[in-house]
């Protein structure tokens, strides 16, 4: 019975949740944490010496967020990304405030205004932002990737110009910049 209820919930959630490309999601899950540690100023963004990897979602995407967390933790074992200890927080957009402590915001599909809100808080608190959807970069998020003929990285050049974001130069050579 429990299985039936869970299947039902997931099915309902899936019906009401936004649509996500599984391959893209999988790619982002494996790459975004790695991109995180390519920031040479990462140490200034750590919270209690931990990377606080915060996934921001709308309430309909909670399960997706949960899955992302689970998949990420299955890739980066032992709560470590390379040498950095990390912790994944799931944060409903409604709970986001200026007091939210985080190193990275991984933003799932949100409304345009919510994206801007995330962007303002991230800029203010010096938080790296990764977006599932590259279009969110036009609304103030920092980094995203898309699978085209190959995997293509996109970076919001305007946000990059803010202080304390200092990616390794090879990465900058690989990305496509969005103004």
């Amino acid at each position, binding site marked *: 019975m429990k299985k039936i209820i869970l299947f039902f919930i997931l099915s309902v959630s899936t019906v009401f949740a936004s649509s996500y490309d599984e391959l893209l999601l999988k790619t982002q899950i494996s*790459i975004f944490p790695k*991109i995180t540690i390519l920031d040479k100023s990462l140490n200034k963004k750590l919270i209690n010496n931990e990377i606080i990897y915060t996934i921001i979602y709308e309430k309909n995407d909670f399960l997706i967020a949960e899955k992302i967390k689970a998949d990420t933790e299955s890739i980066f074992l032992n709560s470590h990304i*390379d040498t950095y200890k990390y912790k994944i927080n799931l944060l409903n957009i409604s709970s986001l405030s200026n007091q939210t402590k985080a190193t990275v915001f991984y933003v799932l599909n949100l409304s345009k205004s919510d994206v801007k809100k995330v962007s303002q808080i991230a800029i203010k608190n010096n938080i790296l932002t990764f977006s599932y959807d590259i279009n969110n970069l036009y609304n103030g998020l920092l980094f995203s990737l898309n699978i085209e003929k*190959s*995997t293509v990285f996109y970076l919001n050049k305007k946000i990059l110009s803010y202080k304390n974001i200092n990616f*390794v130069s*090879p*990465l900058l*050579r*690989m990305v496509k910049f969005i103004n």
Partner: protein
Amino acid sequence: MLRKIKNSLSLKIIFSIIAVSLLVMFILFLVLEKINEDAFYKVEIDKANIILKTVEPLIALDLYLGMKENINSITKELVNNPNILSIKITTENSSIYSLSKNNNLKKTKDYFVVTKDIYQPNSKKIIANILLTYSSENYKKLRYEYRKTIISLFIVLILLFILLSLYIKRLLAPLRKIASYLNNYNPDIKRSPFLYDENNEIGLIAKELNSMQNKIQDYSEKQQNINKNLEKMVEKKTAELKTQLYTNTLTGLPNRTSLVNDIISLENGALIILNIDDFKEINDFYGHIVGDSVLIQLSKKLEYILNNRSNIKLIHLHADEFGLLFTKEIAYSSFIKMIKKLIKEIENIILYHEDNKIVLQITIGAVHGIDNALERADIALKLAKKISKEFVVYDKKLNIEHLYEENIKWLKRIRNAIKHDNITPFFQPIYDTKTSKILSYECLMRLIDENNNIISPYKFLTIAKKSRLYTQLTKIMIQKSCEYFQNFKYNFSINLSIEDILDIEIVTFLKTQMQRYKVADRVVLEILETEGIENYEKISKFIADMKKIGCKIAIDDFGSGYANFEYILKLNIDYIKIDGTLIKNLDTDKNAKILVETIVDFAQRLNIQTIAEYVHNEAIYKEVKKLNIDRSQGFYLSEPIADIKELL
């Protein structure tokens, strides 16, 4: 070729430059080759490393992010580079990304292998290793190009050196021209100057060479003139010397040397030597100028007498001697006539000097024949002088040579006796006639010959006097007599000739010996009166000097010579030794007895002691006693003895 290089300065310089340059270039080539080989290698390695360094961050990021497509894309892109032959990426998970061209890389020289570790971005963790195989084609091409450039450069340099060498050779070519110009240079031959207009070092050498050539020519001309003058002077002097050699400078007549040569060249002939008697007296009395004038006048007179007879040659042998050489055979009678005519003609010559008449007398020695003519004529002349004849013609029967041989033999014996210390004094006692006691001894010279014969001086003293040995004999007698009597208290007499007294060497020696043996006050010096005491002043001075040191003086052979009583008075003598020829006939010759009585009377009045020698028998001794002669000596009393101890 090597000889040509060795003899050519320009070729030496050129070949030295080429050799040094080639060596330098070769060394430079090797050094540059090595440097550039390393440099080119490093450049290519650096290029490969730069490629790796460039792609490494991208590959690192792709590996980190797991973007295999990107890695493949990068490797493909790299392999497109013509120099990259292959690329191989090995990750820590042993994943290999490898890509290569289908080249057959057989030789390791064809490529380089460069590896690099790939670090995780923003970390020091090595996540992979990349191995790049890089083609050495470019490296080889670079080296080839470099070599080509260097070789071209060297070829250009060699060409430049060759041009430089040719230029140096051209520059130095005038030196060779100067050398060939100087070849067979003869300062006696005038040549046009060496033409070289350039105002460089060679030009200066050429200029100085021309100047030096002029100076050498001037000097040579001067030397030639000097040589010519010298040759003339030598010729003139030679002629003069020749004339002097064969001519008498006073009369201009041929001299003795000329005569000797003529005699050698003749086969027949005769020779007359005429000597002016007492010519020394003319010289001493009238002086040498008059003497020379007499000789010149006589020579002219002789020329006049000969009247240019071609077969008679007039010769002036020396001072007062002339010769007449008959160059052709002459009859003996004509020869004698000629001699007599000469004597007569010359004795008729009267020469005047101021108011004095000078009349010449001559003695002639002659030889009829040419063999040993000069020596034989000379012998004949001496014989003529000796026997006081106007002339003597040499004849073998005269046996004159024998006398000469005897003289030579005696001189040899005297020399040997002196050499072997065989000249020794014998001592003959002189007795007091009244008491018959020995008062003194006369030292008489004796020669002991090789057979121990005792020889009296009358046999050799005359010969010795003509040689230099006489002085030695006198010295020996003086020294040995003084030495002998230094140990006896007797007085002793030493005989001295007038020549001895006039000889400073003998007088000095006599004084020295008397002082040495401290016998001066016991010495009686017997001076031979027969020799004629001519220079009374000198003799008087000698006697005074000797008496001062204690000597006594005796006149020996008194009564035989020319001394008169007046001179004897002036000489202040102590003894008169009456001439033996008077004593030995005292018992038979009344005149001798009268003369001896006169001498004794004269001596007694002057308080001079008299001595009789040659007392050879009792009769004489008795006469001596009767005549009151103070002292006596002679064989009757005692012969001369070698050692007086026999009588003591």
